[in-house]
């Protein structure tokens, strides 16, 4: 693969991985530029973890190639490992070691000098709001703090590529803000970040997103352009009983997709101006008279559902 400017940090081509009869990853291509925050988004079982593991050099692909900062990961995973940090989906640190001991362990494995280790762990623990918990066993931390400790350990050396598999699942909003604060800080150092996430607000913060479905990348672009690529337009239907409205609108002419969002239903239609009055009439006909229908900008979740839902163009 040509990369004349040398700015591609992670490159994957034709990656395939099967588990017996299951094709977990079916020939994906990725090119993540240096300093990017690249998001992998997809439903459960889409293959996010499998891709991350192959990129981290802990799982062999059945076919395809991976280059990480120019190192061939498939041929020589051990040469890639000093360059990367991988945070698995399942908490991977030692619960019977304290916060400080876990940090010491990973720092030593990556040959971080003692002085650098002390400065960095101080800095990272402060950014994560975890300074008071140094002597606590990792197993006694809350879920969110465990995830933040995972990030601290992943960043105790200076990786060129950071691989984070659903790093903020189970993390409260405040901790997630700490988390992202640290991630943004890394971009200045040219660290390339690849993360998978189930949170749409988090997906919006990525510089680019790959929408993954059944082991294949269906779309890959910036969040803004993905929104533009969404076929149709979006109408928000706000009523007292959103569930009933959802049922009433389903199957109406021109409706491409539906997404129940708590107090409202996001309805994707082929033509907003034409369909808005039609829907209002249909709802009134079913006894829902208070419906307020307005055109809205799509969020990434709508795009996600529209692009990955059945019948969407691949």
């Amino acid at each position, binding site marked *: 693969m040509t990369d004349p400017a040398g700015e591609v940090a992670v490159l994957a081509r034709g990656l395939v991985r099967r588990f017996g009869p299951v094709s977990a990853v079916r020939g994906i291509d990725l090119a993540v530029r240096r300093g990017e925050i690249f998001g992998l988004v997809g439903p459960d079982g889409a293959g996010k973890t499998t891709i991350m*593991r192959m990129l981290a050099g802990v*799982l062999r692909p059945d076919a395809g190639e991976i280059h990480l900062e120019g190192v061939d990961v498939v041929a020589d995973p051990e040469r890639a*490992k000093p360059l990367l940090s*991988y945070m*698995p989906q399942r908490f991977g640190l*030692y619960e019977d070691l304290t916060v400080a001991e876990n940090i*010491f362990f*990973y720092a*030593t*494995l990556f040959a971080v000098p003692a002085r650098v280790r002390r400065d960095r762990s101080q800095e990272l623990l402060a950014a994560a709001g975890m300074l008071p918990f140094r002597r606590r066993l990792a197993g006694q931390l809350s879920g969110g703090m465990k995830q933040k400790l995972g990030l601290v350990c992943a960043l105790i050396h200076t990786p060129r590529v950071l691989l984070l598999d659903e790093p903020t699942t189970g993390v409260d909003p405040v901790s997630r803000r700490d988390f992202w604060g640290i991630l943004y800080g890394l971009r200045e150092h040219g660290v390339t970040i690849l993360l998978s996430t189930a949170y749409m607000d988090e997906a919006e913060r990525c510089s680019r997103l790959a929408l993954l479905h059944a082991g294949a990348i269906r779309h890959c672009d910036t969040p803004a352009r993905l929104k533009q690529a969404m076929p149709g337009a979006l109408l928000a239907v706000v009523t007292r009983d959103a569930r009933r409205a959802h049922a009433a609108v389903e199957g109406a002419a021109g409706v491409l997709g539906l997404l129940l969002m708590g107090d409202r239903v996001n309805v994707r239609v082929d033509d907003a101006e034409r369909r808005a009055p039609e829907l209002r009439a249909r709802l009134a006909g079913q006894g829902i008279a208070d419906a307020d229908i307005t055109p809205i900008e799509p969020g990434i979740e709508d795009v996600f559902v529209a692009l990955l839902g059945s019948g969407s163009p691949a």
Partner: protein
Amino acid sequence: MNLGRLFAIAFKETLQVWRDPRSLAIALLMPLMQMVLLGYGVSLDIRRVPLCVYDQEHSQTSRELVQRFVASDWFVIARNLNDERAVRDAMNRGTCIGAVTIPVNFSRVLASTGNAEVQTVFDATDANTTTIATGYAQGVIALATADFAARWAAAHGTRPPSVGSVDLQPRVLFNEGLDSRNFIIPGVVAVILGLIGAQLTSLTVAREWERGTMEQLISTPVTALEVMIGKLIPYFAIGLFDAAFCLAAAAFWFQVPFRGSLVTVLLTTGLFTVVVMGIGYLVSVRIRSQLGASQVALMLTMLPTSLLSGYTFPIDQMPAPIQAVTLIVYARYYVTILRAVFLKGSTVADLAVPILALVLYAAAIIWIAARAFRKRLD
């Protein structure tokens, strides 16, 4: 190999063992319990074993032989019998546990060749008693043989062409009073060390898989060799500590005479510890659950060690094919070494063969174990 990473693994593993009650119990309580259980369990000396005698000759020499059994105080003559069937019946009824048959031409053959055969049969229902009683009987016969041979030599002016039961003489010579305890306790030490060593290390890699820490560990630059050696270091230290405890208990508590050098014991114990820990580690790499790994390690160490190491059942009394199998039971070499160092004061040079066997074993196991661990999830 990077010393920093090696240290990191060893340090982490030490903390984990220190904080894991199960590992600590195996490391510190098990040697004590096993030493008491096995040590006392097997060292009950057996006295006055009821014996039937079928003396086909009734000569002065044959009567002298029978008298030697009685004089040893380990046997009492339950019956004098006159045919083979009566012997079988008596043993079946439990009238006696063993029988000595002296052939009709015993003293004639002895007088002409200096060498005659005596048959002993023991009831094998209680294997432990039988083993010990067999040992006693062979001791009695060996002593008698030596005396007869000496008399024959005096009469003929030369040594007899061969002396029967020569291989039994060491037992008579070095294990005074044929005390089974002295014979068995060194074996008990070997069994305990083998058991504990493999148990401890069988948990170490399996624990990483079970707790989900392996995935992140193998994403770092640490090498398979660093993982193995780093993990084994703390267990090796524990193993040596346990060894010191068990050996001290053998010498001071069970009063087994110690005639060898401490250096020989330390050297061979270190080798043996490497072998058992290598086996435990290998199992741990292969089996990704702690329970499964510890059970397989138990089977691989406890069974062959207790049955085939010669620690209670003398190897030279096993059927030939089983004797051949014992050659691959690493514990037999250590049992041989410990016994010899304790009772005979053997040196490294004397024990070159079993030591070499252990060295080869250790090298092979470490070589295989170092290659068994792959830094991959699949």
